[in-house]
C-alpha cells in the first residue's frame, strides 16, 4: 500500500492527464505542449498568459488551451505545474488513481462524474484508467478493445469475467487493433496492475488548435474523394472566400441547371456542325447525335447568329418541361437514350421555328462559311497608317474610324464593320445599343 501513495503523488498535467516523474519536467511539458503560441512558437508560462500574448501580439483570441482534453481546455484557469489545479479535481485525480485498488463502491460517483465529459472514442483510450471493477459493466460493448490489457488482474474475476465476450477469454497476446494498441502499450508493461499503467497518456491529446485541425482537414482532402471534404479556414481571424465544399469553382458552377441545360442542348447542335464541315471527317467521335445532322445542316452553319442562342433558351425551357414529363413516365436511367432523342427532336423543332421568326433581323440564313475564300484573319492586313497612328486620333475609335488615305486599300469588310448601323451584306449588325444582343459577324472579311 505504500506503493499506492507513492504513485498517486506523482506530478501530473491537468490539461492532458499525463503523469511525470518530476515537476520540472511537467512544467517543461506544459510550456511546450499547452502554453506555446501557435503563431510565433513563443513559450508562455500559463494559459491566461498565452491568451494575453496572442491577443496583444497577434490580435488573435485563444479560447482553448492547445492539446488539452476537452473538459480541461479552460484557458482562464491559471495553472503552473501542479499549482493552481482546482482542489476538487486534485481529489478526484487522487481517487481515480486509487480506484483500481479500492474495494468499496464509494468511488463510483467520482469516476462517473468525470466520464460523461469524455467522448466515446476517447473512452476506449481511457480504459486503463477506468479499470475499476465497477466500471466493467459500462464497457462490455467494447470488449475487443480490452485485448491489449494483457493478463487479467485478479480483482476483476468476480464482476469482470462474466461480462467479457467469450472469444476474449483466451486473452490473445496480440491486439486486434494495432492502432488502438499503440496508445495503450504502456499498460502491457505493467500487466499486473493495469490501473497503474496509465503512467503516460491516459487519453489522447485533443487538437484544439484550429490551425492543426485545418491542416488535418486539408490532408484528408488528399486522401478522400474530396466530395465531402470541406474547406476550413486556418485561424479565427481570417476567412477564405470560397464555397465550403472543396470542389473547384468551375465544378460548383457547372452543376447549376442553367449551365447543364446548355450543355445538353448545345451538344446536339454543335456536334452536328462537325460533319457539316466540308473537310474530311477528321474524327468520327462516338456520338449519339448523328441522327440530326442532315436536318440541321442549313441551320448550324450560322453558328454565330443570336437566333440560335435565343432558340436555345426557349428550347431549354421546353426541354425542362419535356424532361420532367419524361421522367415521370419512364424509368429514368434505362431509357435515357430514347429520352435524349425525344429531346433533340423537340429542340430541333423549336429551334427551327425560332430561326424562322428571327429571320428578318438575323443574319441571312443558310450562309455557309465559304471555305474557298481565305479568311482575312490569316492574311496580313493592310493597315498602313493605323499601326503608328497617334492616340488622339483614335479616341472613340469605335465610333469614328476616319479612314486615313491609306485606308483605301483595305478590304471592304474591315472598314464597314465598326461603323454603327452599317450592315454589310452577310454580316451581323454592330449597333452599340442598349437592347441589342451582343452580336458579332459570323466571319470578318
Amino acid at each position, binding site marked *: 500500500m505504500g506503493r499506492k501513495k507513492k504513485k498517486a503523488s506523482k506530478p501530473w498535467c491537468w490539461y492532458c492527464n499525463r503523469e511525470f516523474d518530476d515537476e520540472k519536467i511537467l512544467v517543461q511539458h506544459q510550456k511546450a505542449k499547452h502554453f506555446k503560441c501557435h503563431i510565433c512558437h513563443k513559450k508562455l508560462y500559463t494559459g491566461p498568459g498565452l491568451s494575453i500574448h496572442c491577443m496583444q501580439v497577434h490580435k488573435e483570441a485563444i479560447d482553448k488551451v492547445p492539446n488539452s482534453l476537452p473538459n480541461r481546455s479552460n484557458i482562464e484557469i491559471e495553472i503552473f505545474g501542479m499549482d493552481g489545479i482546482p482542489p476538487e479535481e486534485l481529489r478526484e485525480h487522487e481517487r481515480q488513481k486509487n480506484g483500481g485498488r479500492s474495494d468499496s463502491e464509494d468511488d463510483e460517483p467520482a469516476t462517473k462524474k468525470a466520464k460523461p465529459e469524455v467522448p466515446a472514442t476517447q473512452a476506449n483510450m481511457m480504459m486503463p484508467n477506468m479499470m475499476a471493477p465497477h466500471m466493467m459493466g459500462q464497457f462490455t460493448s467494447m470488449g475487443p478493445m480490452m485485448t491489449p490489457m494483457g493478463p487479467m488482474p485478479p480483482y476483476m474475476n468476480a464482476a469482470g469475467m462474466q461480462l467479457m465476450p467469450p472469444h476474449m477469454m483466451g486473452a490473445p497476446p496480440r491486439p486486434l487493433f494495432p492502432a488502438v494498441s499503440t496508445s495503450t502499450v504502456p499498460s502491457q508493461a505493467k500487466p499486473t496492475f493495469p490501473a497503474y499503467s496509465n503512467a503516460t497518456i491516459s487519453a489522447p491529446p485533443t487538437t484544439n488548435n484550429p490551425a492543426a485541425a*485545418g491542416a488535418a482537414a*486539408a490532408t484528408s*482532402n*488528399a486522401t*478522400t474523394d*474530396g466530395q465531402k471534404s470541406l*474547406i476550413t479556414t486556418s485561424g479565427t481571424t*481570417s476567412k*477564405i*472566400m*470560397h*464555397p465550403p465544399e472543396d*470542389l*473547384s*469553382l*468551375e*465544378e*460548383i*458552377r*457547372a452543376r447549376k441547371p442553367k*449551365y447543364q441545360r*446548355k*450543355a445538353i442542348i448545345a*451538344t446536339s*447542335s*454543335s456536334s452536328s*456542325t*462537325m460533319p457539316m*464541315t*466540308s*473537310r474530311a471527317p*477528321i*474524327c468520327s467521335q*462516338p456520338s449519339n447525335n448523328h441522327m440530326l445532322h442532315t436536318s440541321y445542316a442549313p441551320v448550324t452553319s450560322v*453558328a*454565330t447568329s443570336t437566333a440560335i*442562342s435565343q432558340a436555345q433558351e426557349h428550347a431549354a425551357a421546353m426541354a425542362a418541361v419535356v424532361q420532367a414529363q419524361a421522367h415521370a413516365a419512364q424509368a429514368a436511367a434505362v431509357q435515357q437514350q430514347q429520352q435524349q432523342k425525344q429531346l433533340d427532336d423537340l429542340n430541333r423543332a423549336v429551334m427551327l421555328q425560332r430561326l424562322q421568326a428571327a429571320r428578318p433581323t438575323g443574319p441571312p440564313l443558310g450562309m455557309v*462559311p465559304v*471555305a474557298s475564300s*481565305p*479568311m482575312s*484573319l*490569316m492574311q496580313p*492586313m493592310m*493597315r498602313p497608317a*493605323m*499601326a503608328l497612328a497617334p492616340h488622339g486620333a*483614335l*479616341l472613340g*475609335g*469605335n*465610333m469614328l474610324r476616319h479612314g486615313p488615305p491609306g485606308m483605301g486599300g483595305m478590304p471592304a469588310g474591315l472598314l464597314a464593320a*465598326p461603323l454603327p448601323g452599317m450592315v454589310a451584306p452577310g454580316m451581323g449588325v*454592330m449597333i*452599340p445599343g442598349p437592347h441589342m444582343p451582343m452580336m*458579332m*459577324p*459570323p*466571319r*470578318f472579311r
Partner: protein
Amino acid sequence: MFGSSTLGGATSFGQTTAAATPNPMKDYEVVSPPEDSVSSLEFSPSTLPQNYIVAGSWDSSVRCWEVEQSGKTIPKSIKTMGGPVLDVCWSDDGTKVFIASCDKQVKCWDLASDQVVQVAAHDAPVKTCHWIKGLNYTCLMTGSWDKTLKFWDIRSPNPMMTINLPERCYCADVDYPLAVVGTAGRGLIAYTLEGTPKEFKRNESPLKYQHRAISIFKDKKNAPTGYALGSIEGRVAIQYVNPVSPKDNFTFKCHRLTLNGAAGYQDIYAVNDIAFHPVHGTLATVGSDGTFSFWDKDARTKLKSSETMDQPITKCCFNATGQIFAYAVGYDWSKGHEYFNPAKKPAIFLRSCYEELKPRST
C-alpha cells in the same frame, strides 16, 4: 500605344460616364465582350504578325478579336460550343484554336476556314487543353474531371496516349518539354514530354488548400525550369522542378483583404490565374478579390497591385511580345450562386504593361 511606355490611357469606347468602378485602372475595354464570365483568355502566338485574343466564356461562346497597337479591338468571329467553355489554346502556328468545354469535348477551330471540328473527347467536362509542339511530334494535351490526361493527334479520333491522374484535373500548363498538372486533393504532377509524355515527378503540394492555377516559368536560357502554383487560399508557390537548393522554392501570400474595422481580420480570396511575362519573366496574378498584382519572383517583391474591380478577375494573359496585359472581369462563383449578379456585366480589359513588369534594377 502598347509599344510605348505610357501607362494605361483614358480611352473609353463611347462610354462617357464612368459609373461606379467597372474600370478603375482606366484600361482599354474589349468591345462586344461575352455575356457571361470569361473562363479562358489567350493571345495569339508570336508566329502571327498581329495580335488576336480569344476568350472562352460560360455563355458557351468563344470569341476572337483583333487587338490593334492603338488598343482598339475589332471583333473577328464567334463560335458557340455545346456547353460552357473551360479552356482555350492556340496552335503554335496561330492557325487554330482549341476549345475545351463542359460538353466533354474539345473542338478545333480552324480560323482560315472558320470551321469547327471535334478533336477530343472525355468522360467528363474537359478542364484544360494545351498544344504541345515537340521536336518529333505535335499533339493536344487535354485534362479532364474524369481523372485522365489525354494526348491527341488531332487527325485521329483516338488519343495517342492516356495517363490516369490521381484526381480530377484542376489546372495544367505546358511548355515543351515540361508539363505540369494540378489536381483536386492537392495533387501536383510534373511530366516530361520528350520522346513520349511520361510522368516525371509527383510532388507533395507546397500549399495546404485546393489548387487553382498553375503556370510554367523559364530560366535565363529560356528553358522551362519551374512553375507557379496558386491556391484558393490567396497563396502562390514558386516551385523549381529541380531546385538547386531547397530554399529556391517559396510561397507568398496575395489577394487577401485586411479589413480595417476588425483588427487583423482578413478575407482570403482565391488566386484565379497566374501568367508569366514572356520577356521579363516576372509574373501577374489575378484574384477573386478583383485585383491583379505584378510580382518579381527572383527579387521576391511586388511590382504593382491594381485598384479593386467591382467583380473578381477570372483570367489574365500576356501577348506574345509582352506589351499587352489582358484581364477578364466577371463573377467567378467564389461566393456561391447567391452572389451572382446578372446586372454586373463581364468585361475584358487591355493594359499596356511592358514597363510595369520590368524587374526593378538593383
